[in-house]
């Protein structure tokens, strides 16, 4: 694990603010993807992303519960101290294709969960505050559970990783 580029996270409210941002962002992104896949006639993957959005929503709620009693700092979008190069659990918008299958979508989700886990693990490893480290460790463990769960789902998935055939339908031009 690399040392963070940013200053370490030093307080519980700061960590919770990051966690909340991470989960709400990921919910938003999964929702966008679900909407997008639905529009592009890929209902299977749309449903899966919708499901993932639901999980992120649940996580965000639980962070909110933990945050009760704290006053969380407002952090500008670019001031979050993400410590891995891509940042956080948010799925990248460009790793998708309208013909992607469930298997590929699950791989994508797993990749995101790993990034989330690594973020918390990084905080746990580098925060000077033991209290912060402890909470971050706890959160990293939760993320690890998600990663494992996704791995199980992937194992059960019949679909192959690659798109089977070349896309024969030419793109269309609406304007």
């Amino acid at each position, binding site marked *: 694990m690399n040392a963070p580029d940013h200053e370490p996270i030093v307080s519980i409210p700061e960590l919770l603010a990051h966690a909340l941002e991470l989960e709400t962002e990921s919910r938003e992104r999964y929702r*966008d993807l679900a909407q*997008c896949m639905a529009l592009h006639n*890929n209902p299977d993957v749309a449903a899966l992303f919708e499901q993932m959005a639901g999980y992120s929503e649940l996580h965000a709620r639980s962070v909110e519960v933990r945050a009760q009693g704290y006053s969380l700092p407002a952090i*500008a979008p*670019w*001031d979050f101290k993400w410590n891995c190069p891509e940042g956080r659990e948010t799925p990248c918008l*460009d790793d998708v294709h*309208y013909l992607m299958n469930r298997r590929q979508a699950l791989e994508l989700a797993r990749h995101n969960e790993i990034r989330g886990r690594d973020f918390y693990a990084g905080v746990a490893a580098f925060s000077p505050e033991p209290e912060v480290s402890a909470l971050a460790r706890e959160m990293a463990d939760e993320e690890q559970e998600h990663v494992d769960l996704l791995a199980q789902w992937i194992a059960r998935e019949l679909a192959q990783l690659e798109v089977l055939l070349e896309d024969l339908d*030419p*793109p269309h031009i609406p304007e």
Partner: protein
Amino acid sequence: MATETRTHALKAKEYKSDIAPVWCPGCGHFAVLSALTKALAYLELPKERVALVSGIGCSSRLPAYLDTYGFHGLHGRALAVATGLKAARPELTVVVAGGDGDGFSIGGNHFLHACRRNMDLTYIVMDNEVYGMTKGQASPTTAPEWSRSKLTPHGPGVRRFRPAAIALAAGASFIARGFAGDPSGLTRLIVQAIEHRGFSFLQVLSPCQTFRPEQTEWKQQVHPFDGEPAANDLEAAARIHADDGMALGLIYVEPLPVWQPLAQPSASLAEIEQELSL
């Protein structure tokens, strides 16, 4: 680091409309939309005081996806519409969005003159080095040897249009480059661009999943600009000259005179009519 407490009156997603984008899954334009909503939320701009103006192209579909005022106009003419709007309604936040074809090909002249005029507008060009909407022809920013378009089977064969260099030569007072794959950096640049008083030009590398699938490699190719943003045009020219086109960040910002007509009524219509009388 901005850690002061801000009360975000509206969340980013509240700036979104309920219309689902027609963009291809994986299109870079999604990230621009998302960063823009975050920037608007960060700046706490009331939705009704924001107007998004665009031309025609995939990128230019953006206004409808925001719950602000919007104008989806003609191919290449977004800056003109925005100029008129801002001249008539200076208190609005006017953001112009479009593509490389819209802005640099058919819209090139308005780009030049909008830079010169330096009105307080923010211009975001989602550059995918291709005409997405019309099925993948070369745009001015396309590499000379890119030969995948049937219209230019040997590649366009023409030097690439250098948006930052042109903007600088034309007189823009804020020049930056963002990347769809760097959402928080992009959000920050949009915030800076909107906050800048004058014409802010923001080129966003925004991959076209469908016609330029090789652009997924951009993730590996982008890197931050070295050093601090230039504060005068000589420095800016040096930075742009050293640029490989993949450097991200604020390139140049300088407070230059902003053009904005002043509305200071000083006569009545009756007085004006009086002049016609003998």
